[in-house]
């Protein structure tokens, strides 16, 4: 009993050390836990899977480097899946550093696509029109950051090309094949097959949901773990077709596309860290009960 009471006054540096080890050791020993995709991630995967080849998809990178370790793996997994299905991701951002985040995710996804091209082709998991490489302006485009969030989305609904005369690198979007329609029509929001927002806070998927009545496009989200309870509501109402929540969501998507990336790598440290935090909560409560019992005895 005394031991538990002493435990209550444990120096917080010991707690920090335990958390540090719980994250580091599984990484050092390369521990791996089996990942089972959940309903929400499967929903998004299925939706992307059934999109016709060549469909343009709008991916909004609404996060900054603080959330990159959590949302980056989701973005890479979804982009890789889109490349393999010969879909055309168009990346934008409602957060100032969204363009940079998209650039990094696109570079990694195209690297994964290229390195796994032959294996996927042999396994028959590539769309018929897939080529060994993906090209900027043809297979994908990074449109960069635009201010306004909901206002920007509203502007996209009335004239998609208006806010984007150039891509992030200053290349004119007018001549880009990715924006060309077979019938010569100007590219519009209605040509987008799915909107996916990687959201770390405000100005993310909710900006798209708010004007869903205007764009009427299917939506999905990749969000940080703390945002999951907020966005589950939109899944329940059918406003989102799917969602990857936090690093576990990314790991589940990686599992579905048969890729071992940062999401799956992070599952062992996260699992152990969760266990350690739970053990500390239990220990703290045992100490609390022990202290109460001791106080009662004294009384």
């Amino acid at each position, binding site marked *: 009993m005394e031991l538990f009471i002493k435990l209550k006054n444990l120096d917080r540096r010991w707690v920090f050390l335990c958390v540090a080890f719980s994250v580091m050791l599984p990484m050092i020993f390369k521990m791996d836990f089996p990942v089972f995709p959940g309903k929400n991630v499967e929903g998004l995967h299925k939706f992307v899977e059934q999109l016709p080849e060549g469909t343009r998809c709008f991916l909004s990178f609404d996060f900054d480097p603080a959330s990159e370790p959590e949302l980056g793996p989701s973005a890479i997994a979804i982009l890789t899946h889109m490349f393999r299905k010969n879909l055309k991701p168009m990346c934008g951002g409602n957060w100032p550093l969204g363009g940079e985040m998209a650039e990094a995710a696109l570079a990694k996804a195209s690297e994964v696509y290229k390195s796994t091209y032959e294996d996927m082709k042999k396994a028959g998991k590539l769309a018929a029109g897939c080529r060994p490489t993906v090209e900027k302006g043809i297979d994908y485009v990074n449109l960069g950051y635009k201010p306004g969030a909901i206002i*920007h989305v509203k502007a996209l609904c009335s004239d998609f090309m208006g806010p984007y005369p150039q891509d992030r690198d200053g290349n004119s979007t007018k001549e880009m094949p990715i924006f060309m329609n077979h019938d010569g029509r100007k590219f519009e929001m209605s040509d987008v097959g799915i909107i996916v927002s990687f959201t770390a806070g405000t100005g993310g998927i909710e900006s798209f949901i708010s004007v869903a009545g205007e764009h009427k496009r299917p939506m999905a989200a990749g969000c940080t773990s703390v945002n999951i309870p*907020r966005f589950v509501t939109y899944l329940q109402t059918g406003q989102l077709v799917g969602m990857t929540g*936090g690093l576990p969501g990314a790991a589940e998507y990686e599992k579905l596309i048969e890729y071992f990336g940062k999401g799956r790598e992070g599952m062992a440290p996260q699992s152990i860290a969760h266990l350690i935090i739970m053990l*500390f909560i239990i220990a703290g409560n045992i100490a609390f009960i022990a202290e109460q019992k001791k106080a009662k005895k004294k009384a």
Partner: protein
Amino acid sequence: MLFIKRTVPLIITFVTGIIMIIAFFSGPALPTIKSLEEVFPKWIQIIMSFTMVLGAFSLLRINLHKISRKADGWGYSLVLIIGFVTMATLGFLSGSWPMFEKEVIVGQKYYLLSENSQSSKPVTVSKVEKDAEGNVLVEVTPEGLTTPERAPSDRLKGGFMNMVNSLQQILFVGVFKNGQATMFSLLAFFVASASFRAFRVKSKEAGLLMGAAFIVMLGNVPIGNLVSKYLAYIPFIGQYLDIALIKEWIMAYPSSAAQSAILIGAMLGVISASMKIIFGVERSHLGGES
């Protein structure tokens, strides 16, 4: 002066607010007003871009003033100014480089950026051509190699611009990106310490909260499946103790119901606050009493 500072912004807020409400509900019956719904977002985007410039100047002014007065913590302001000016200069230079390096000259040495722009290698241009879409492609030979490779011309940079790009990458990826990620990661340590000290089951409600928290924490990570596997050995009820399924249920029903209520309440609050601003009842945004 008060007219310019108070009355004019109030009139603008009232008129634009009312127009936007009418435009939203008007439909095709009032095409002129409806068209404003398309124009206004463009205006707002332009104004927002200016506010970013204004914010940058304001940041500089406040911190320069702090440095000149040698106020408490002026050293932090100095670091902020140096960081701000350095990143802005490198960003402007990097962003405007196509203006300085318009043409690619055959036989000249350049630096070929990697696809993620985080590294580069010295190359010599041997051929410049345009593809069917009009994109300029270059054939380059990396230093020390004889096999040429093709690359888009926008990945080629001269010596100076390569140095600018390297510096920007060092500061952005090496300092800013990792710094932000580290700050966010520190949360894990504080959450562990805070929950150890403060998460006490002092009532039934707190017990319920802890139970739900444990299920969600376990169900969110793969180890939850492992726990479920062992729980399945418990006679009679074991087969129903699937942590991932229970977590899904908690998220989809009790949590989602509470979230919906919070969202509806928050939205009603937003509508009420917006009406107060449109009708000039709430004036604190003008820098005075409400």
